[in-house]
């Protein structure tokens, strides 16, 4: 997960590894928690990230994500997002670049005007092929 933006502590990662080593195969707890209509709004890597943070007991961990809304959000919708701890960095039409606590993902994804949430991904420069 090195190229997903997060700040999991080393102890947390070790804890996760320990938990996984103890249980050789594991399935997503987060996926089981979220109803399908919420899952369909979340990208798979975000689901995995939530699962990790759930297992680590770090629901307040902030995540950097791109949120797509049905249309450009109005002030009420912005307030609603902010009430869930969402910090909006930028707005490009219907796309918001935000950070928010992991625990708020489900509530935000459940908002009618939110269509999809995707975890930040790292890109690569295209020189020196």
């Amino acid at each position, binding site marked *: 997960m090195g190229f997903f933006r997060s700040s999991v502590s080393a102890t947390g990662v070790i804890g996760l590894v320990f938990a996984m080593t103890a249980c050789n195969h*594991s399935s997503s707890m987060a996926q089981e928690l979220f109803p399908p209509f919420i899952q*369909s709004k979340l990208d*798979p890597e975000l689901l995995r990230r939530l699962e990790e943070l759930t297992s680590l007991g770090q629901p307040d961990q902030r995540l950097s994500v791109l949120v797509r809304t049905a249309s450009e959000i109005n002030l009420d919708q912005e307030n609603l997002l902010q009430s869930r701890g969402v910090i909006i*960095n930028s707005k490009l039409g219907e796309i918001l670049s935000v950070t928010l606590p992991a625990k708020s993902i489900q509530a935000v994804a459940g908002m009618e005007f939110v269509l999809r949430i*995707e975890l*930040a991904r790292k890109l690569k420069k*295209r020189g*020196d092929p």
Partner: protein
Amino acid sequence: MMNRSVVLSLIIGFFLGYLLSPAVAQAESARTKLSPHLQMLISGNTDLVETAKRHVHLRTAPEYTEPMVDTLVLFQGDPKAVEAYGARVRSVLGNVATVDIPLSTLEMIANHPNVIRIEEARKLKPRLDVSVPASGANGVWGTAADPPGSSDANLRPLPPPWTGNTGQNVVVGLVDTGIDLSHLDFKDTLGKSRVLYVWDQTVNGTKPAGFFYGNECTKQQIDAGTCSQADTDGHGTHVAGIAAGNGLATGNSKPAYRYIGMAPQANLIVVNSTFFDTDIVDGITYIQNKAAALFLPSVINLSLGSHFGPHDGTSNFEAAMDSASGTGKVIVAAAGNEAAADIHASGTVANGGTTTVGFSVSSGETDILLDLWYPGADQIGVKVTSPSSTCTIPVSGFRYPGNADQISNTTCGQIVISTPVTNSANGDHEIIVELQNIGAAIKAGTWTFTLTGSGCGSTPCVTNGAFDVWVDDVSSNAIFSDHIDTSKTVGMPATATEAIAVGAYTTKTSWPSSNGLGTDSFGTVGDITFFSSLGPRRTCSNGSNPVCTAVVQKPELAAPGEEIMSSHAAGTLTTGVCFAASNQCLDPDGQHIVFQGTSMSTPHVTGATALLLAQNATLTSDQVKTALELTRTDSFTGSTPNNTWGYGKLAVDLAIAGVGSSPPLGHTPSPPTVLSAVAGPDLATISWTGITNDIYLDGYNVYESTASGGPYTKANSNIVSTNSFTVTGLTAGTPYFFVVTRLDTPNLESIDSTKMTATPTTPSSGGGGCGMIDLRRGGPSNPFEPISYLLTLFLPLVLIRLLRRRRDWNRVDLARHIP
């Protein structure tokens, strides 16, 4: 007496005999080995020799007794054999040698059996040099000699002063690895930065308004040298140079303006990015907000990409590019370098059947991610098997859409399989397979994943069965070993509907370097590069989504991208960054370097777009695309559009013809308000109201004249950065007139301020040492002057008298010299 016909026959016979003699035949044979200019050089015809000398480099050196012709010799056998005739072999590369040949033995050496052909050394044209003229930019800039629209302008480098469109009043935005702010390619001739803002997202500091991280520098801070941002990679500086460098930087006695970017007078706003897509979206927002506040159109260059996502325009990141495109707002993105990288595979799975795809993993990989997409109507199962089948996940059966993620720690590394429910944006299914060196190292070798069209009970699993899968090349170097498909290798965000995706073609294969001639054996001049990613973009299965069901041309066009010489960031790598020998990438001037990639072709289009927007700021992103479809095509491009070239080769001189004219309002610098001109002895001090909160302001010029109507001459040698200036050396008693102008980036000067006048006064005598008074000036005119005159006259006398009393110092009696 012989008649005339006999004489004529004898002459012809003699001449033919001479021509057919072995010596003449040998000489003629030798001459055919020489290039035309070298043949002219030994012709004996004065006019031809003089013409040849303009093209031939004659090398002189103390050890040479005569001028030596600098040549390239194609040879067989031992090239050193020619040294018996006074030549000196300098270097040998294959069967070509660089040889200095004495003019007197040139023909003899050409006759040597080891010599196949001799050509004079030819001076290479400097290069952005080739790529920028090839893209048609010179013909848009124009000069007095080659006015805008002149096709001749595109045949050679075109240094300033330019008379046409150079991208002024357009913002070129760069989201990249930053920029070398000290590089002269990004300063104007006043030495002021053309970079209006820099936002460094990678450090903490003064956050830009509305954002919560990073450090922002304004132009004033950049000009003051207090901005700490640095490009420690070099990629961003190189990209910036192609899009908007002005070619001013040089060194080692090389002339300036050899490497001029596409829009050499555009304004720059730079984001030094983390390369996370969220931050890139922030960077785009930042640049567009700044440009909007300045009432300027903008084009943003994204020489970056990824293959993790749907490749169909529906990811949030791709959608952000569409949102960021509009009137006066254009996004240009690199198509990618993956045409030959084996990072895309495709195939079909039959209902009830299985398909197995292999991928190779090198040792030492830490994180490998495969992203597979297939139509939402299908239900395809997946399992993963390691090399030698040591580890197979899941142990029994397959994972299907909607199953929970499978995370397995094995002796082959951690294996994760994600099979989420249908993607809400495009209606398709996604499968993610990720290998990480958690718990154990990822096993090197050929892994496989198997797709099955079985296991859906009475319902058919597959009705379509087509799939596409990409390796995320950001995190790993894994490649597919079968089912390889070079198509659909245009990466994101270039796959966004509104983004202009740019492929790369070759415009040169050799260049001067600080270590001899650099050469590239990969490219063919005029042809697409081997790495330029290919279209089309993927289409989705969600019939109700017009974005991903539409067929969108990708890439849109191609631009020069192989061996491009552009700005070199100080302190960054100079070796191993081009296709030549590792130490042949840096130009002899030490300020420019050769890189290649669609990272380099993209800023050619970005700069071209800046020229289009400078011509018409009201163009929409779609209109810019349509204009850029006017390309050059040839036997390499074939019929266009196609998935390799898009519409063809960038030709901004053609594109600009049809875009109308509505230049950006931009800014026309207004002059400062002059408050006063106060006279003093032989001087006058001019004061004005300082201009504040102007991002463009570079400073002021002060002009003087003895006539109200001018002509005015500049009084300051350096730009005035304060709000007053004292003009000295004036003639007392003569009325002077003064005007002030304001200087803005880039090289813009306002009209004159209102005139102010002052008449310098007669200075007090500065000759206190001699006690001399210049009586010609007619005495003092202000009430304090008598005191100064008295002091000038008597102070030396008083001092000397005091000294003589105290020291008995009588070697010099200055008082005697007072007239």
